[in-house]
């Protein structure tokens, strides 16, 4: 029973890692850039969600969970716009500057976004309004509990990931994205507007990241400005583990990291879980340097 309960706990944490990992993977796919600012865009999703909810609840007096819907749209668009802005200001001018400069630029953006959140919202822990999320859940055989929120989180992240996968593989823009991820110059020769495609990637990645921030904050109920750093780092590792640039890989890597960490924490100690998780990570990378699903280059992204 304990094992199954820990599995449920781990899958929930994994779903969050996977959602955030998508943003790393998409940007890496088209730009070969590790967008370290992604974790902080995700954190901004949580803060903007707080602002949105406060305004929605105060102005409209919503008493139903549907108050969340306009907030989701607000968070998604504003974080997506932040993402595009970051690309315009900090990455595009460095597009031909080799690979090191944009990574440092990304770290700079990450620090700016984190300090900005601290200065705007203050350093104390923020709590979401109570009673917005449904409580209750199922008790499965053997006393394993799955809360309604956990089911919602899992379904929502699966739908977002499936939608993204279909978008990339079944639409014209998605095809263009895959082309750009293979070669910028050849894509340009084929008539693909590379800058526009990159902009779309920076709309979708941070947009999803922002929503992930909102979901995490709704689920846990409280957070502070360091949220982006911890989740961002773990999600980045999940993306590498699954094979960076690969959407199903991000999902697999996130789930795997969440479950390994949880079992490590549950069966040994939370003090040891990172040691265990990263030993396994190093082992996987030694035997599969491109990550678990990373080898099919042509199908990347």
């Amino acid at each position: 029973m304990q094992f199954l309960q820990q599995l449920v706990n781990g899958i929930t944490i994994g779903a969050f890692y996977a959602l955030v990992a998508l943003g790393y993977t998409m940007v890496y796919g088209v730009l070969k850039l590790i967008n370290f600012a992604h974790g902080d865009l995700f954190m901004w999703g949580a803060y903007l969600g707080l602002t949105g909810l406060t305004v929605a609840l105060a102005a409209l007096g919503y008493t139903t969970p549907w108050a969340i819907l306009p907030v989701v749209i607000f968070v998604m668009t504003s974080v997506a716009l932040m993402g595009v802005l970051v690309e315009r200001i900090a990455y595009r001018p460095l597009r031909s500057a080799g690979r090191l400069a944009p990574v440092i630029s990304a770290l700079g953006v990450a620090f700016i976004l984190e300090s900005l959140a601290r200065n705007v919202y203050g350093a104390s822990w923020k709590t979401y309004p109570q009673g917005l999320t449904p409580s209750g859940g199922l008790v499965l055989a053997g006393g394993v509990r799955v809360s309604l929120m956990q089911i919602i989180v899992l379904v929502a992240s699966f739908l977002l990931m499936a939608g993204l996968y279909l978008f990339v593989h079944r639409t014209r823009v998605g095809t263009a994205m895959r082309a750009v991820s293979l070669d910028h110059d050849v894509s340009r020769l084929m008539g693909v507007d590379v800058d526009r495609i990159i902009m779309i990637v920076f709309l979708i990645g941070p947009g999803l990241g922002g929503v992930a921030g909102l979901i995490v904050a709704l689920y846990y109920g409280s957070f502070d400005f360091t949220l982006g750093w911890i989740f961002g780092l773990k999600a980045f590792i999940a993306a590498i583990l699954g094979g960076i640039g690969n959407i199903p890989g991000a999902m697999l890597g996130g789930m795997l990291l969440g479950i390994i960490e949880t079992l490590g924490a549950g069966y040994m100690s939370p003090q040891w879980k990172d040691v265990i998780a990263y030993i396994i990570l190093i082992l996987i990378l030694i035997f599969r340097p491109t990550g678990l699903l990373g080898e099919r280059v042509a199908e990347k992204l």
Partner: protein
Amino acid sequence: MSRKFAPVLLVAILLISLFAGCKKEPETIKIGLEVPLTGDYAYEGQGMEKAVRLLVEQVNEQGGLLGRQVELIVEDDAGDPTQAALVAQRLVDAGVVAVIGAYNSTATEPASEIYNEAGILHITPSSTATRLTQKGFQRFFRVCFLDDRQGLFAAKFMKEVLGAQNIAILHDNSTYAQGLAEHTKRYAEEMGLNVVFFDAINPDDTDFTPILTNIASAAPDAVYFTGYHPQGGLLLKQSGELGLDLQWVMGNACNNPELIQIAGLENAVGTYVTTEPLPKDLDYPEAKEYVAAFEAKYGEPVASVWWLMAAEAFNVIRYAIEQTESTDPAVLAEFLHNEAKDIPGLTGPILGWDEKGDRLGTIHVAYVIDENGNFILNPEQPSP
């Protein structure tokens, strides 16, 4: 700097120092306050600043100390040991006589080394890690009580009031929380209780369901969490959501209304907190007068006992300066060690300090969170 400007600058400096020498005003007495104004504990630090500032203003309105105005210099250590060392040096350089701070033991520890070396009187309002006073620092004092006392109280409370036989203890690896956890474990085992679970969380985590599931499978009669309120709140929330039947008892770092906000009221009800009494429950005229003055000035209650303890630290410094008519830290420390007895304190009469600088006596009590989200004094307390 070019050679041309050097003489000009020299003359300017001479002139300025000439005017400075002419000033009739006596020099201010500088008191330092080192608290976290940002970071996880910003709520506490900001309240502590308000609490001390109120007393400083009162003193200055009444003509200051020894006829000199008191100047409060506030530095933000963010609860972080590296930054604590940095700002401690800044306070020393500013020429303070005494320092109040820091909030958490992890920040107090490196700062105390610097104050000790500089020979400054250092009083912590809230850092309760036992080892802070075991370094032989002659000018370091506490106005709070030791973790060791709280550990004894917590073990007694779980045994006598909750009737627990098997207990779980959880800390967060910080200096303070680990110390309190280990003292509690030692006293609990001396009293014949079984400690069936003893481990730490990583306070950077957000999800504690793995360890909660683990604690539940050890089936303790009570769980004592010794860490801070952001994690305490998350533990209560996730424990409630997992439907675990755990009786939570929390240490004094969870003595904070934000605990209930983070946990959600339905998950926090029935949780006990071992702590110094809340400001509103203190039955001394000095306490009542101060609490009323604080509310009148800031329009909010003294929400945390640590705010009051910070004010108490200032109160002690003032008392020592008035009694000795000196601002020499050596004289003040000597006075507090050997002569100070029954000081009329905001947190009850201060009996004095032992040779290590630990405050004598104890005032711990247990609170319980009621259905309205208030911390109320638990009707049942263990034997003294």
